[in-house]
């Protein structure tokens, strides 16, 4: 099938942005990640009008929804490029638009700086200081929580998350939900609960747009209910 790929280009945070359209001939089951790799591996990349174009900057590692690197706006929706397929996206106009996630500082083209995701984990003290305790009842939700890719799609759609705000968003809540199950000792557990209230509970408006967008379809509402039970209602 024939596809027009409309890509938002911006060399660096200070340079002007513009859209550039590329032709691609492929199959409906081709992922956007495959298309970007193919375009970037051409000997010379040219846009629709035949003008030479620079290679497209984006992040990619595993190509199979295990690493979260390739999150971007695809037709306006945050998704993983490796999990977005041409046949589902092209529509009648056979046009797919790629833009960088908007809530993170731009680095170049489709690549953004997601450091804040990792900084938030640090602020919330999301680690263990004693041996993990084992609770077989919550085994499945602990497993689900550890699957989080840290891709940032949940923050992109969250009505409460702002890059300059205190609210840490669903990615941090996900990690916290498991650690609050595993940390049973007073000292650090108290810290975890306190930080959870401070950086998550006070900011979350329960819109749950995070759950709708999560590329792995993590059961965020369940994790949230469990976390709140632990941190707010002390079960």
């Amino acid at each position: 099938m024939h596809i027009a790929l409309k890509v938002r280009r911006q060399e660096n945070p200070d340079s002007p942005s513009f859209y550039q359209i590329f032709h691609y001939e492929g199959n409906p089951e081709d992922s956007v990640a495959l298309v970007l790799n193919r375009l970037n591996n051409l000997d010379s990349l040219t846009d629709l009008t035949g003008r030479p174009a620079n290679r497209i900057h984006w992040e990619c590692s595993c190509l199979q929804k295990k690493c979260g690197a390739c999150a971007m706006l695809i037709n306006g929706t945050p998704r993983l490029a490796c999990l977005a397929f041409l046949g589902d996206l092209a529509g009648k106009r056979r046009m797919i638009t790629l833009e960088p996630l908007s809530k993170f500082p731009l680095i170049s083209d489709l690549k953004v700086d997601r450091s804040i995701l990792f900084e938030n984990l640090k602020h919330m003290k999301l680690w263990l200081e004693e041996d993990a305790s084992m609770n077989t009842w919550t085994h499945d939700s602990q497993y689900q929580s550890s699957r989080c890719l840290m891709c940032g799609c949940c923050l992109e759609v969250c009505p409460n998350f702002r890059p300059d705000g205190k609210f840490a968003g669903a990615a941090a809540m996900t990690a916290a939900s498991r650690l609050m199950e595993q940390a049973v000792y007073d000292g650090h557990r108290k810290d975890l609960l306190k930080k959870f209230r401070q950086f998550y509970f006070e900011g979350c408006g329960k819109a749950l747009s995070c759950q709708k967008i999560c590329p792995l379809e993590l059961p965020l509402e369940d994790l949230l209910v469990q976390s709140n039970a632990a941190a707010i209602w002390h079960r």
Partner: protein
Amino acid sequence: MNQTILILGAGLAGLAAALTAAEQQNKVYLISAMPSERAQSVMAEGGINAALDTKGENDSPEEHFWDTIRAGVYLADPNAVRALTDAAPEIIRRLVSLGVVFNRDMHGNVDLRNFGGQKKKRTAFAMSSTGKQIMTSLIQAVLRWENQGSVIRYNDHTFVTLIFNHDNRCLGCVVRDNRTQKLLTLRGDAVIIATGGMNGLFGSTTGSLLNTGEVTAELFRLGLPIANGEFVQYHPTTVPCSGKRLLISEAARGEGGRLFALRTGTPWYFMEENYPELGNLMPRDVVSREIWQILNVPGEKRAVFLDMTQLPLDVMEQKLGDLVDDCMTYLHIDPRREPIPISPGIHYFMGGIQVDESHQTLFPRLYAAGECCCQYHGANRLGGNSTLGAIYGGIVAANAALPEVANSLNDDFNAFAEQTLEDLRQRASSLQLGGRHFPLPGIRAELNAILLDSLGIVRDGPRMEAGIRAIGRLIVEKVQGNYDPAFEADENLNMESLCLLGKALLLSACNRRESRGAHTRSDYPDLNDTDYRRYSVAQYRGDEILIHLEDIPQKR
């Protein structure tokens, strides 16, 4: 103590090393192209081996040792392997205490599954996403030290080259900030390389695109020996998809999946017929070779399938749920209902940077751990030993580095660093003067095609020699004096090193005139212990690649 350790790579080996060093009050710079969440380690699926002996099968580290040695066809360092298998149960306990969510059995113990090449249940797992689950807990364990300032991350930085003194003593490294493209010199009392396998040489593998092989290539250019480079693991069950090879975890067969080929219209369970004892769970080299032989009968169009349709639905859901999901998403096949057509694909590099038992390289104060180094796996790796080897290797490398670096060096780091930068500038400008402008992706694709063709599952002398000549031509015709302005200077400089590394793998393979483990030659089909029960070592000296064989340490 408060020494600075530089760790390149933030996957399992890098994180294990960082944690080990930080827990002993050292300062760590953890340098990686992307955050740990993007490292190839998160893709590890089937599990991690340890003789926990919770299944009443009388398992022991000794048996784990022998299975590893036998699967590696006696080409692994027996002392290193013995230490690995002895340490394995404690590593699992440590991972549990760090909060890794392993599957549990009905008694609450860490559950164990069958895996290839091992008769006893020894593989701890978390569905078929074991790597991801371990990584999440290790990342959090290291985060605690990041918060204290003892681990400092340099995400989004690419290794450029080493800084070392006249005695090859490693003093630090040059890295490039991927955002500003500026070069940075970092001083370290020791450097641990944990940058993964050489996927980039072959292009199409089951692994991550981040594992370009560029670090290994640069170290090879600097004179570090590459051991057992010819041993490339083809995983039996992969499917070409999305420009890579999608892995169908060995866990599928560990839980009862069966391989068959269609013969006169009926399924032929060739593994079960040819290997009645282990059947579908023979070591990977054997299974891949069997599949290759079926698929490569001249004049016949054949296919091989992995059949999980007979597995109980609760096993599919509770132990292989993510595998089912991957098949549905990327292959549009529901493995509960229909068999998956598979073929072998490149999955792991047993060979790599040569290290001793303590993971030290030829250069003092330079260590290597994880897939980038040659340790533990011999001629063929057991499933479940890669995650174990990466974690254990990282711990060993850090523990070996710490006492050694306690004596700080008086070397003038700044002078050597400046000299290294100047050397880079000069090499880059002489490359630019070459006047050639072939695009790097095209050159890389040619190198990939040559290596895929000549280092297949079954090899032969003429084909490998043709590959060596083709790389030679590629270097002369397109790589030397070539500069692609779309890429950074170090990426341009590294192209020749990648070609040399590829050539080194081929030369090692040519030199080994026997068939052993993952190295199968149609012109030398037999094992030859007299001449070749030894390591292949390739070293680049100035203008040529030298290959020699080295004795394997005796078991203590």
